[in-house]
């Protein structure tokens, strides 16, 4: 075992040269490459962090936008519901109003129809009553209804003369109103009767087709009537009463 100091010196130089060579061609390139890669990785990480922050901000903005849209949607929905409720109430009100109008019109129409029916019934009843009376008088006594009415009126006239004079005052114009023209014979009887009860009174005859069959005498402010109007009204009352009883029976 010996040491060659020249070789030792040479090896020492060789080692130092090797240190320099490896530093130049191994350590520095490798370490610089690692440093550069780490720097690039750090830069990429920083960029990724920036992107992550941007994405988080975008996500937060998106969530806020979603919340805002949801709130707007809820508000619009609520408004639409309120409008629909108002529209429904308005339609209901309009429908109720229309129904009320229709019901009122229907009631008016029904009342009008009832009135027309009553009028027809009244006329038909009167006509039937008069016709039956005429027929009964004609069949039983050979007299007309007008003759019997005039006879009855003239028989009552003397008893009522005082009252007529008091009611007529100074008036001496008597008006006899009938539905149909009276025969001359009956007119003459009336003239004589009135002249007897109320001397100096002039009689005038008027035809009124709307009047019930019979005779009406007006002298000044006084008026006497012998018509079938009251009988027809009585017949109407009987019919109305019968109809009411029928409706009550149907209702039960």
């Amino acid at each position, binding site marked *: *075992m*010996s*040491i*060659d*100091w*020249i*070789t*030792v*010196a*040479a*090896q*020492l130089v*060789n*080692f*130092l*040269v*090797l*240190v320099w*060579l*490896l*530093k130049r*061609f*191994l*350590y520095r*390139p*490798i*370490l610089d*490459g*690692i440093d*550069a*890669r780490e720097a*690039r990785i750090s830069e990429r990480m920083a960029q990724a962090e920036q992107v992550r922050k941007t994405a988080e901000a975008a996500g937060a903005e998106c969530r806020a936008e979603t919340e805002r849209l949801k709130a707007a949607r809820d508000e619009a929905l609520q408004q639409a519901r309120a409008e629909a409720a108002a529209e429904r109430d308005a339609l209901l009100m309009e429908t109720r109003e229309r129904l009320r109008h229709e019901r009122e019109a229907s009631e008016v129409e029904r009342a009008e129809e009832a009135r027309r029916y009553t009028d027809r019934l009244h006329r038909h009843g009167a006509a039937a009553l008069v016709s039956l009376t005429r027929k009964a008088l004609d069949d039983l006594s050979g007299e007309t209804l007008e003759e019997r009415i005039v006879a009855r009126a003239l028989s009552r006239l003397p008893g009522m003369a005082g009252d007529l004079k008091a009611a007529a005052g100074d008036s001496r114009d008597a008006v006899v109103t009938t539905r149909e023209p009276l025969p001359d014979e009956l007119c003459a009887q009336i003239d004589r009767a009135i002249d007897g009860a109320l001397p100096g009174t002039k009689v005038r005859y008027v035809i009124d087709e709307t009047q019930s069959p019979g005779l009406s005498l007006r002298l000044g402010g006084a008026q006497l009537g012998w018509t079938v109007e009251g009988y027809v009204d009585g017949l109407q009352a009987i019919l109305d009463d019968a109809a009411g009883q029928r409706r009550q029976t149907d209702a039960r």
Partner: protein
Amino acid sequence: MELTPDDTVFFTVFGFAINATILFTWIVMAILTGASILITRNLRPDVPPNRWRTVLETIVLTIQGQIDEISARPDRRLLYFAGTLFLFIVTSNLLMIVPGWRSPTGSLSTTAALALAVLVAVPLFGVGSRGIGAYLHSYIEPNVIMLPFNIIGEFSRGLSLAIRLYGNVMSGAVIAAILLGVAPFFFPVVMDMLGLLTGVIQAYIFAILATVYISSATAVPDSVSAKELT
């Protein structure tokens, strides 16, 4: 049988004998430098590392990691020094598997040169790190009586480094040569494999010890650290 490659002289240059130790050292240097140049010649940050570059990075980072674990003050110059020690020794030892290879670390001249390099590097790193006054003061710590012992210890560390590496490598080569003569087939292979393991371990030990010596020289004493902190 030649125990040291110093005795094998290949040629002479200007009266200077180029023996096997120097020649094979140049070969190791050429291999290491050439491989480094080949692998790192197209090194660019934007190019992903290939397989060989990854191997080199792994080796360098492993050495750097070991140094960082030992040294309180990691220094790239320490990496250059200790890393080169390890790579040179391990390459020289691993190439023993090549027939006819004469490992330079089997020469006491080489191990002495490496130990001498460590012996010189320790004060250089210590002075560079702590200053010459503080470094020289470490030789009289804990008191001046310890000065000769510290100096002896310094030299004995270098001597032990040189002798340990030389003895392990040389003995492995000698044992392999003897076994090759006795049992040419099986035992030399086993011993060569054992020699490879021993070579790697010796390289590791040499580099680690050098790092420990240099780190201890560059380490700031606890009392000084406490003063700096306060």
